[in-house]
């Protein structure tokens, strides 16, 4: 890298400055083109093709096949690395899980390298190797095993592979855990093995319990050996290394991997290394989705402190190690088919690291590592891990100040979580106060207790606006004679909003009951065919109970179902109330007719769009979104999952709101067929006209204490608004008011001036963009192109 500087006489000199190790690592990961690794799929298949193996207990099969993967997959140590372990054979890569969602994904095999969004590198030989395994898994993958009756299979094909009403993610595996890494780094796999052996003595050989313990023992041993493989490799590389500094580093790596994960960690580096090995192995076991290290600043701090005292580490060294770890998290990516990309979007796999917040005893947990992590997320600004910061009323001013400065300067990490609301919510749902205080997010936004919850937080997502379509059509889709829902009152007989609500509730109850039935078949199949012994060994309760986490062995067992597009649904109900019953602008049958024709009448559509929407602090409008969320929660509350836990609602949608929007007809809120729904709890696209304070007042009308699976609330600002001390102070006040008034979670997005340019070129993108010039009154979209340029000029100057 070239830097131009001046010497002591002011003459320009060209000097070559070597970027830091962290920047070199970041650069190698960011410039690597992502690919598909066939190791897991091929090794897994080879194991299962042996019919002797298929006769073993599912627990043993699982442990042994994972052992085969850990002992035989290709391993690498890359230049400059301090924390080692490669998830895939590519620098950045993903694996195929043929036994889970494998076959639907494999059907895309020829598209991966050519597709426009997120192409994945795969060679001809690798394609051939994967093609060879398809026949074996054709009738053995999870969804097929779950639905044995022909009727259910047909429904599976209609609903799952083309999920319009709901999508059951759990059919692709469960994952979504924050393992008890504290336990692993303190007792090592040896400790886990001893624990399992101890429990196993009290069980009868050959029973399910015994097999479960046996599986834990097998996998604990395999994980230790996985570490040893790196120790050997590092030693070999060290002896061949000519650079003395690197040689020493490789020796240290070898020493580290000889100790961990087999033994308890004796240094900070060993602790980080130990958990990263487990991170790889758990991703390969349960599913490469949302395996979350969680509260790293909390459980790593004792190791940092001890090393500091022994003068074996400095703050900078610890930061370098954690940066190296942080970068390695981006090497792990999920492999999605094009269809699944609709649902999950991007290459995001939700590995959450949480900092700050309360300790189990209720005191503030902020420590030096908390700040180290904040610096790392600000400096690296990479996609993974998904960094969360917890805020409590005990959070120190310095911590908040650091976060506000980062966010105001455009860092999109961390997302913020309100301890007061989340701990309360968790306690109300049955967590002990100590476990609730030790929560971390997993996946996107879902709170779980670290090392204690097996909550399938992303079990399924329901398309709620589609339920309104059914309610207005006696259980049918527009233009369909086939009844996809329950029978409810025809619109011509509806005399009031009460009738509309009744129909909506009937359809909602019907769809939720169908969803739960399908989901429970998958839950049972996961328990039967895809137990997760390694995950279970790091979740409190499983070893004690002798029950795998998939069967309900963990201390807490929730399942999260997402309510997708509540604002679009609520706004549509309000539009019906206003247009049909208050203004009597149109009859309900006439409105429904218009909807089925995709709102061809522009003046009607504009009228519907102009009706007040959620997000503008209007109680009359907001109450309908609140109603939708309440009804959704009420329906879920009636059911218990097969692991003995509750179904809890979540208000986030990743990217599925776009997909559901594409497959859903026109809505009374003026949205045409195919247009995207709003994300999470955001207002329908751009319908918040009054700025962040009004939006927050609307959002806080939702009772978050019922939303135990978490909320995603995006708060967008343009960078000009947040400039300087005034802007930072405003951001700070907005966030603290939001949390004080019961807000649960917020993700701040600062949009740069280029966003204004995009808004100029496409007015529908941000229809109600705020323009704030002292004493000036206008909306951006009402300005002439020349004036829009003027605003853009002003925003750009200051930044």
């Amino acid at each position: 890298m070239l830097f131009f500087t001046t010497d002591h006489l002011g003459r320009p000199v060209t000097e070559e400055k070597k970027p830091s190790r962290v920047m070199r690592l970041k650069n190698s990961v960011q410039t690597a083109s992502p690919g598909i690794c066939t190791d897991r799929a091929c090794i897994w298949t080879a194991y299962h093709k042996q019919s002797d193996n298929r006769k073993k207990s599912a627990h043993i099969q699982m442990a042994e096949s994972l052992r085969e993967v850990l002992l035989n997959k290709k391993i690498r140590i890359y230049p400059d690395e301090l924390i080692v372990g490669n998830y895939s054979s590519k620098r950045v890569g993903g694996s195929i899980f043929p036994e889970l969602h494998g076959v639907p994904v494999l059907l895309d095999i020829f598209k991966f390298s050519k597709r426009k969004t997120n192409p994945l590198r795969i060679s001809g030989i690798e394609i051939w190797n994967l093609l060879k395994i398809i026949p074996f898994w054709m009738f053995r993958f999870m969804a097929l095993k779950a639905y044995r009756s022909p009727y259910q299979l047909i429904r599976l094909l209609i609903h799952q592979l083309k999920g319009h009403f709901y999508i059951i993610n759990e059919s692709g595996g469960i994952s979504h855990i924050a393992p008890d890494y504290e336990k692993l780094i303190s007792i090592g796999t040896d400790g886990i093995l001893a624990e399992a052996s101890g429990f196993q003595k009290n069980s009868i050989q050959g029973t399910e319990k015994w097999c479960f313990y046996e599986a834990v023992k097998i996998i604990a041993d395999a994980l230790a050996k996985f570490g040893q493989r790196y120790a050997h490799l590092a030693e070999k590389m060290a002896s061949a290394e000519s650079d003395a500094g690197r040689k020493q580093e490789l020796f240290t790596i070898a020493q580290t991997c000889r100790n961990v994960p087999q033994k308890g960690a004796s240094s900070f580096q060993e602790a980080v290394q130990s958990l990263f090995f487990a991170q790889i192995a758990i991703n390969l076991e349960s599913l490469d989705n949302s395996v979350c290290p969680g509260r790293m600043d909390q459980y790593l701090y004792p190791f940092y402190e001890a090393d500091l005292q022994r003068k074996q580490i400095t703050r900078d060294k610890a930061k370098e190690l954690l940066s190296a770890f942080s970068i390695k998290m981006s090497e792990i990516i999920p492999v999605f088919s094009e269809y699944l990309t609709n649902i999950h979007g991007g290459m995001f796999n939700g590995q959450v690291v949480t900092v700050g917040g309360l300790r189990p005893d209720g005191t503030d947990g902020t420590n030096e590592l908390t700040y180290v992590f904040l610096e790392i997320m600000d400096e690296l600004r990479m996609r993974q891990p998904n960094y969360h910061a917890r805020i409590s009323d005990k959070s120190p001013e310095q911590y908040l100040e650091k976060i506000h400065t980062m966010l105001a300067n455009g860092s999109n990490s961390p997302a913020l979580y309100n301890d007061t609301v989340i701990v309360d919510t968790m306690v109300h749902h049955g967590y002990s106060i100590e476990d609730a205080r030790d929560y971390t997010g997993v996946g996107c936004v879902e709170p779980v207790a670290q090392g204690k919850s097996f909550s399938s937080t992303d079990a399924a997502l329901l398309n709620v606006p589609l339920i309104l379509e059914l309610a207005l059509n006696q259980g049918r889709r527009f233009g369909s004679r086939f009844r996809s829902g329950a029978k409810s009152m025809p619109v011509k007989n509806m005399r009031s909003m009460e009738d509309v609500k009744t129909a909506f509730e009937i359809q909602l109850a019907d769809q939720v009951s169908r969803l739960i039935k399908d989901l429970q078949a998958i839950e049972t199949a996961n328990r039967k065919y895809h137990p997760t012994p390694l995950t279970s060994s790091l979740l409190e309760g499983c070893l004690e109970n002798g029950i795998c986490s998939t069967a309900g062995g963990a201390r807490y067992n929730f399942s999260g179902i997402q309510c997708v597009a509540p604002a679009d649904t609520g706004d549509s109900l309000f539009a019906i109330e206003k247009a049909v019953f208050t203004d009597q602008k149109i009859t309900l049958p006439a409105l429904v007719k218009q909807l089925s024709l995709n709102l061809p009448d522009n003046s009607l559509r504009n009228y519907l769009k102009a009706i007040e929407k959620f997000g503008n602090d209007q109680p009359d409008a907001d109450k309908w979104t609140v109603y939708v969320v309440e009804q959704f929660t009420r329906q879920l509350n009636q059911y218990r999952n097969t692991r003995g836990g509750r179904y809890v609602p979540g208000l986030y949608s990743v990217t599925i709101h776009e997909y559901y929007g594409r497959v859903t007809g026109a809505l009374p809120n003026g949205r045409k067929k195919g247009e995207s729904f709003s994300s999470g709890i955001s207002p329908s696209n751009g319908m918040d006209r009054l700025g962040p304070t009004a939006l927050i007042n609307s959002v806080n009308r939702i009772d978050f204490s019922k939303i135990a699976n978490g909320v995603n609330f995006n708060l967008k600002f343009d960078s000009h608004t947040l400039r300087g001390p005034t802007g930072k102070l405003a951001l700070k006040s907005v966030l603290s008011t939001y949390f004080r008034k019961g807000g649960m979670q917020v993700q701040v997005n600062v949009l740069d001036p280029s966003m204004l340019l995009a808004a100029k070129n496409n007015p529908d993108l941000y229809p109600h963009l705020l323009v704030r010039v002292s004493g000036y009154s206008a909306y951006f979209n009402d300005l002439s192109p020349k004036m829009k340029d003027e605003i853009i000029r002003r925003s750009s100057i200051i930044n």
Partner: protein
Amino acid sequence: MMEKDGNLHYPGEKAVIFDIQRFCLHDGPGIRTTCFFKGCPLSCVWCQNPESHRAQPELIFYAESCIHCFTCKQICPENAISETLALRFDPERCTACGLCVSKCPTNSLRLVGKEWGLTDLTNEVVKDIAFFQDSNGGITLSGGEPLLQTDFLLAWLPMIREKHIHTTIQTCGMMSWTNIEKLLPLLDLVFYDLKHMNDSIHKQFTGKGNANILDNFIWLSKSGMAVQARMPVIPGVNTAPDNIRETARFLKKNQQESIHLLPYHPLGEAKLNRIDTSLRPMNITPLDLKNLQEIQELFEKEEIHAVLYD
């Protein structure tokens, strides 16, 4: 309530306001809700809110989004709408009844100015009270010229003060002192515009001389009220060093220590062809940062701290 002559029939009970903006960060301390009062005694050529000049509600027309359906023409009881008018409506005939506004399918016709009762306005501005508390913000009266509706403010501001909300006013000062004086106990901060120190230039560009304004400023400074002088920096109008120096000395004489400089921007011109106004675009380019900093330095030289807005 409103007649065409613009007289309020219930003075003091209703205000005409043309916009209420929440989350304003540059109209006083903290997070503020700014109420734009309609009606102004001046008509500055650079005005950024020319739709504020008239006291009564009026129609505004957004030609770009008009789809020429002329639903408005069919419904107008005054026959004020015509295809041939660039403004779409004849201001002489229009009574701002709002019928066309409610029927316009693309929201191209809108009413500027809405009557607000005491309670309604209170309920509206207290919505962000939690944010005011956290940020030491409050409400700002802007316009137009809020002092034109003094009777309303006298009845309304006590309701706001009761809730311990900080109140700021932005005024041009063109008002009888007795009116201003009555309001002072109800205000926390006055933003006061000084546009030009020369009477005849002031008259040329704003329509009125500055004698009354300067007098009021002197009185205000003596009253012990928190006053912040502000100056719209208009290239070629008030940027001459002489005027800057004179302004600075005037401030010093009145024990003021600082001034806020609001750089000219042409954003108000976007509105000129949408309303009935005699104002025309100034066709000047905004000052760049360097020029603005020179003006800032001139003030600083006179020991007046100048804060530059952006």
